[in-house]
């Protein structure tokens, strides 16, 4: 997983580079929360461009981060989801609280890599 934070807009991007299942969720959950706590972002974007597979563990993972981010005053969005992942998003109704964003998040050059 990579993450980058854009100071100006207080935007935190998580780019996950593996299948999202229970194994992955257990592995990255703590780290996501640590970064959310550290940067207190206004907006969190989960970039799915390198995720080819996700099962219901991904729904739990996203809802968990959503609750945490809301508590700290931030929003959560997802981007670049493929057709099979979209099917799971739509079935679970999760896009109602974690909408999809099509806009390219900020120029990665201005961004501070962790």
């Amino acid at each position, binding site marked *: 997983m990579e993450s980058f934070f854009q100071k100006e807009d207080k935007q935190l991007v998580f780019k996950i580079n593996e299948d999202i*299942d229970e194994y992955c969720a257990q592995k990255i*959950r703590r780290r996501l929360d640590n970064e959310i706590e550290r940067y207190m972002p206004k907006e969190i974007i989960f970039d799915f461009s390198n995720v080819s*597979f996700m099962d*219901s*563990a991904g729904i*739990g993972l996203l809802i968990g981060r959503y609750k945490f981010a809301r508590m700290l005053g931030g929003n959560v969005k997802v981007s670049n989801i493929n057709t*099979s992942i979209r*099917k*799971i998003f739509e*079935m679970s109704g999760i896009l109602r609280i974690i909408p999809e964003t099509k806009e390219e998040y900020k120029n990665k050059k201005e961004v501070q890599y962790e």
Partner: protein
Amino acid sequence: MNNTYDNEMKIEFLSKSNNEAFARISVAAFIAQLDPTLEEIADIKTAVSEAVTNSIIHGYEEKTGIVKLNCKITKDEVFIEVSDSGKGIENVEIAKQPLFTTKANLERSGMGFTIMESFMDDVQVESVLGIGTKVTMKKKIKNNSQEEEKIAITTRREA
């Protein structure tokens, strides 16, 4: 039940969550001989992942046990059985309800059975408390070459 399968495979593995990927990828590789569409492969992988994860985190919880995966195919159908000798399900009808989970503390979403049921054509759950759980799933494959044939026929007709 149809007993004339064209092919079959069985694997057994320890109830470790890093085996979830192994399980779904094995099934995807095995069913490739049916020439499924990408969508069919994704649906089956997801359903297998849900069933296997359930055996690992609900069936065996923190304990180590063996998860059994059996996959059979006919010309156009896939049959998958995932079983564990774990703690079992008290009430299967309730467990199958969308959003029902006994592990909200682990951030489970309760969508596992709902996903299995909507991605597969048929899902059966047999479970006995203290003995274990067996999930049997079935899906028809409208394989690519059949689709291609259909397209070829219609285009010939149109020509």
